[in-house]
């Protein structure tokens, strides 16, 4: 497939060797970036940003709760794109990326749930409140767990990738529907909740640490994605080598 112009980044990434080379180059700068972003973000979250006039200090939980919500959706969007890559473009690295991303996305979603629960406790008085947003995040978490379980249940990576890609896309299509139905369900039972996650107007000084923490989460996601993709490539190479070892033994053994 000789394309006249230099093949686009995606095509060059198609073969594992090219990916590994690029990954090794990017990995350490990303790690340093992640640490720096976390450092600066946390400093901003605790030192320079003010307390909230309504909730007081507990608003500081926002700096790890809200970015986690962003990332849980961002990672899922990434998985949906990879799923398209697998199904439509047959990009060989797409399913590796998707398999690597799923647990990371689940992790961020879990953080969003836990911090949401801790944040809600002082306000609602219960550990868990069927708040529309938290419930939607819970459903997203269940979808993540389903996809991870599906990955683990499939022992033949190539054949299974398409099945998981379809599940991911089906999940992606359903997310807005779920979001709408949960909001609708929530308004049926609960009067408009007086407690607004993150408050209606966010103080300007809060914005910078919030976005820096968002960036820190993003960079961490990229680091973990690269590490997990390299692992997945090794696992597949191990499986190939095992088959080669078995066939080689069959030829040698059989001939005697």
């Amino acid at each position, binding site marked *: 497939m000789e394309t006249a112009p230099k093949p686009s980044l995606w095509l060059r990434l198609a073969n594992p060797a090219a990916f590994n080379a690029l990954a090794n180059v990017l990995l350490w700068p990303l790690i340093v970036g992640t640490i720096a972003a976390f450092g600066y973000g946390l400093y901003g979250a*605790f030192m320079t940003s003010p307390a909230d006039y309504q909730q007081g200090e*507990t608003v500081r*939980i926002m700096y790890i709760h809200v970015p*986690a919500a962003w990332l849980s959706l961002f990672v899922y969007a990434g998985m949906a794109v990879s799923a398209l890559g697998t199904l439509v473009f047959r990009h060989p690295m797409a399913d590796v990326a998707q398999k690597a991303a799923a647990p*990371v996305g689940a992790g961020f979603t879990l953080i969003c749930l836990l911090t949401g629960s801790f944040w809600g406790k002082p306000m609602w008085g219960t550990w868990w409140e069927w708040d529309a947003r938290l419930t939607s995040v819970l459903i997203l978490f269940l979808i993540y767990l389903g996809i991870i379980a599906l990955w683990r249940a499939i022992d033949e990576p190539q054949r299974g990738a398409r099945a998981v890609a379809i599940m991911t896309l089906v999940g992606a299509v359903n997310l807005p529907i779920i979001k709408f139905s949960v909001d609708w369900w929530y308004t049926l039972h609960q009067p408009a909740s007086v407690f607004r996650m993150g408050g209606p107007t966010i103080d300007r000084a809060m914005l910078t640490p919030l976005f820096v923490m968002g960036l820190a989460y993003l960079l961490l996601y990229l680091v973990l994605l690269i590490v*997990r993709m390299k*692992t997945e490539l*090794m*696992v597949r190479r191990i499986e190939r080598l*095992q088959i080669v070892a078995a066939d080689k033994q069959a030829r040698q053994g059989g001939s005697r």
Partner: protein
Amino acid sequence: MIDLGPHADYIVASYAAAGLVLGLLIGASVLANLAAARRLAALEAREASKPAAAKQ
């Protein structure tokens, strides 16, 4: 530490929970990577030695 107000323990708890989950995620990813690298090296070493050594 700066005064975290009446609900300080919830703030600390939520940061601890987030830290724990991220720690587990990072730890699991790195350990899985190292384990796979070890197994791969063992297999590749065995491949290299196979043709040379007679049927052991």
